[in-house]
């Protein structure tokens, strides 16, 4: 409506301007110019001037057209799948003595998964009475690989030095609630749009009194939008397994118990799959700006206008 009104206004003004009374007799009057106009040289020059003026006009029009097109912000609709690997996974391993074998398998399967990762960040935290961040969340896969190798070696050889930091002074070990809480702290706050998951490998057999219970830690995880996946061991006590399963269910995750025959690999793979599905983004149509063509038109118009002006000035 506004555009139509403005266009009408412009047209009206143009008409008024064209039909304005010609009171051009105030300049220096010259008569008998037909003698000049009859000269071939005059015609040549006039044609040249017309050409230059036409060129400049075309250039100006091109510039205006380009500017108008550009102001319309032309876009091309494109269906994009957003980065679906924007995930943070913290491996949260209970390193009480009974877990070494399973931990080694968890670490090993994650190490094998590394090749398929792209964009995910991986972190490793081990806990027992206390928790240690072995490496923080990172997508430096070479570093991750070396650390996982290190961890795997430590689990294989039951290297006491590796776990010594998790030993509490008091009688306290395998504190799953505290472990989850400290793993939750490994997520950085700025990237809360990334999917967050904790892969918790534990037999949930705490010794002594921890600070947080598993339920409290699960509530905290849900509040932080962190999904906790439990990897249980075949030998864990049923009520402990239920507790862990309930806790993981509150966060939207689940717990699987590693069968003796199957191994951790399948479980981890399953977690990976489910995580991928959970975070699979809906392909959305977005519009990508395509300013190249109108910008090109505007620039070409400007160049032509400039050329016309220079050509006109050259005289």
């Amino acid at each position, binding site marked *: 409506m506004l555009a139509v009104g403005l266009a009408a206004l412009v047209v009206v003004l143009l008409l008024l301007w064209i039909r304005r009374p010609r009171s051009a007799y105030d300049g220096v009057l*010259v*008569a*008998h110019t037909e003698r000049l106009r009859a000269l071939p040289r005059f015609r040549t020059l006039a044609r040249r001037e017309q050409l230059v003026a036409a060129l400049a006009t075309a250039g100006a029009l091109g510039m205006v057209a380009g500017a108008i097109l550009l102001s319309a912000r032309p876009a091309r609709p494109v269906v994009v799948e957003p980065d679906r690997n924007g995930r943070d996974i913290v491996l949260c391993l209970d390193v009480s003595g009974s877990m070494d074998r399973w931990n080694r398998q968890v670490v090993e399967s994650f190490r094998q998964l590394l090749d398929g990762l792209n964009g995910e960040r991986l972190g490793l935290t081990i806990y027992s009475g206390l928790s240690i961040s072995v490496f923080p969340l990172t997508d430096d896969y070479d570093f991750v690989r070396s650390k996982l190798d290190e961890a795997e070696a430590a689990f294989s050889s039951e290297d006491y030095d590796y776990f010594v930091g998790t030993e509490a002074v008091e009688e306290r070990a395998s504190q799953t609630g505290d472990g989850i809480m400290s793993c939750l702290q490994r997520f950085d706050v700025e990237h809360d749009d990334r999917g967050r998951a904790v892969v918790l490998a534990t037999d949930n057999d705490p010794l002594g009194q921890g600070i947080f219970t598993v339920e409290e830690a699960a509530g905290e995880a849900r509040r932080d939008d962190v999904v906790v996946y439990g990897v249980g061991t075949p030998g864990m006590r049923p009520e402990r397994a239920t507790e862990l399963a309930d806790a993981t269910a509150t966060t939207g995750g689940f717990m699987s118990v590693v069968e003796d025959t199957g191994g951790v690999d399948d479980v981890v793979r399953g977690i990976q799959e489910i995580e991928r599905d959970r975070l699979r983004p809906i392909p959305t149509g977005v519009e990508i700006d395509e300013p190249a063509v109108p910008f090109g038109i505007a620039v070409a118009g400007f160049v032509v206008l400039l050329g016309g002006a220079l050509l006109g000035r050259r005289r």
Partner: protein
Amino acid sequence: MTTHLPRIKARLAIHSHRKVRGLLQGEYASTAVGRSMDLNDLREYVRGDDVRDIDWKASARGGQMLVKRFVATRKHTVLVVVSTGRSMAAVNEQLLPKRDLAVFVAGVVGWLAVRHGDLVGVAYGDAAACHVRPASGGELRLERSLGAVHDAITPHAAPADLAGLLEHVARVVRRRRTIMVVVCDEHGLDERTVAALGRARVQHEVLLVTLDDLDPTRRPVPGLTDVDQGAPLPDWLGGDARLRQDFVEAVATEAAGLKAQLARLGIPHERVADHETAVPAVFRLLERHRHARGR
């Protein structure tokens, strides 16, 4: 508004104190021998002469009958014909308004005639209308005629039509053998104009004064406007040397053609560029006219 003649008189007064003083005395020649107070010469009496013209004393001295001959005091009629088309509203090469120059030339001729005691008629017109103000001897009348000519020249007037004006004069002015001073700004004469001038030449003593036009290629005058189209002239006219040269050549060719045409017609012609040269030009014209008569 008696403004034209005083100005012209002032300029003429300046000139009369210069080299052309002598010319002012003589002005132009009588066309016939007739009766007047001015004795011309004596000749022998032939039968049929008026007895009153016999110079008795001279006859007594000479021993033969002598008769006085007088210069005719027949009043001349000077007809100033001004082509007042809109092209006259333009400026000339000196950036002077051609209107002023045309009025000035007409005024000089008219004033000389009035002072000489002759009758001055003024004819002016363009393609749309022609006017003839009948010959009379009055100074005031001349002033009014000049005013009329001045007012007739506007940029909004019709285009000039010298042939039409001359034809109109031929139709309207019954008087023959006037001294017709034509003021125009023609650069070349078409056949119709040549015919009209030829006819006028037969009936009158025709003297032609032309005014030139500004050469738009010569110097950069901002805001040049074509008086015929009412539109500004292109601003690139002054920038091209070849155009300038071509135009100068074209103008020169035209001028030569006009000169040849007028020579063929036997019409004395002067080109007037400004007020200073206008007076000598008019005198030269009258001089040539006198010499032409003397032959």
